[in-house]
């Protein structure tokens, strides 16, 4: 127990980080609204960074936190804004464009567990 790098506590830390990562990945995919998805993606990038840190990879964690929490979500938001201009219906199309696609029929075919895992994240 005196060694902080191994033993049940280290295992528990890794398991917690892994569980968080899996939950957040599922949440990113199941967030159908792209603008909200960018925010969830940013959180997922941070959780991945923590997981990499726990797995003793500080270089990778640094890179992931820079790219995953800042660059990619920023570019996604900017691209979203750029495409909004071109869509039919103009600027107002964004709010009522929430896809009602995630119905029980399609989602429960592929991964029933995923819906259960991320059920709390649905807006």
């Amino acid at each position, binding site marked *: 127990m005196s060694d902080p790098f191994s033993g049940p506590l280290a295992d528990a830390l890794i398991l917690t980080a892994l569980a968080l990562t899996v939950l957040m990945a599922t949440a990113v995919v199941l967030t159908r609204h792209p603008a909200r998805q960018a925010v969830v993606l940013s959180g997922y990038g941070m959780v991945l960074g923590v997981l990499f840190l726990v797995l003793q990879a500080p*270089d990778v964690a640094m890179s992931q936190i*820079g790219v995953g929490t*800042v660059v990619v979500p920023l*570019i996604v938001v900017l691209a979203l*804004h*750029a495409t909004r201009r071109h869509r039919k219906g103009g600027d107002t199309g964004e709010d009522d464009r929430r896809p009602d696609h995630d119905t029980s029929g399609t989602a429960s075919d592929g991964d029933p567990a995923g819906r259960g895992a991320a059920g709390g994240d649905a807006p």
Partner: protein
Amino acid sequence: MRTRTRTLLFAAGAAGAAALFTAGALDLPRFGGAVHPYGDRAVRQALRESTTNTISSVNFDQRAFDTIGEELILMASAIGAVVLLRVVGKEAEDQGAAHRHGPAEVSDALRIVGYLLLPVTLLIGVYIIAHGAQSPGGGFQGGVVLGTAVHLLYLAGDYPALQRLRPIPVFESTEALAAGVFVAMALAAAGAVPALNGAVGVEVGCALVLLIGKFFEQALLVREPPGGTP
């Protein structure tokens, strides 16, 4: 293909892939096992070259050729994105669209934070690149920090200053130059880890500045005159 057929097809494929992956993964060496032959050799080699950050040693010394490949992918995709966005931008400008100069109202707190963080963040980026051979960090991570730090000016609401700070042509040539320098150095002097770190840092930083800059231009392009925008 209808959504339902597509989902069914995916379910079948995913079930098969999951079964095969699980069978394969259960035969891998157990998580946390002690046998890492490549890792042990890489550590030994890095210590022989007295590069204390083994990961930088692997990237810029032992596998420098692979990193050339990754660099070229990075440059190619950055160029591709910039060219695609430039075409869209040109057409929109021909149709009379104009640039909106940043957010209309920025609170003073945000403005001050943006201006204060800019030099600190730039310094951290340079530090991460410069110390990449010794401590966690390196060209890739530091380049990301540098490339995004510049855009704190947008957060501060100073879009004209941001445009002055990043003249696109200069960054385009610098990126190409850094990529050329990296390839030449990796071929001629693989193992000069700090120098290669610097070249990669400059290239990644320029690529990100270009990409984010182009996306910003797209996002800020509006059809109406600046008064009537949301």
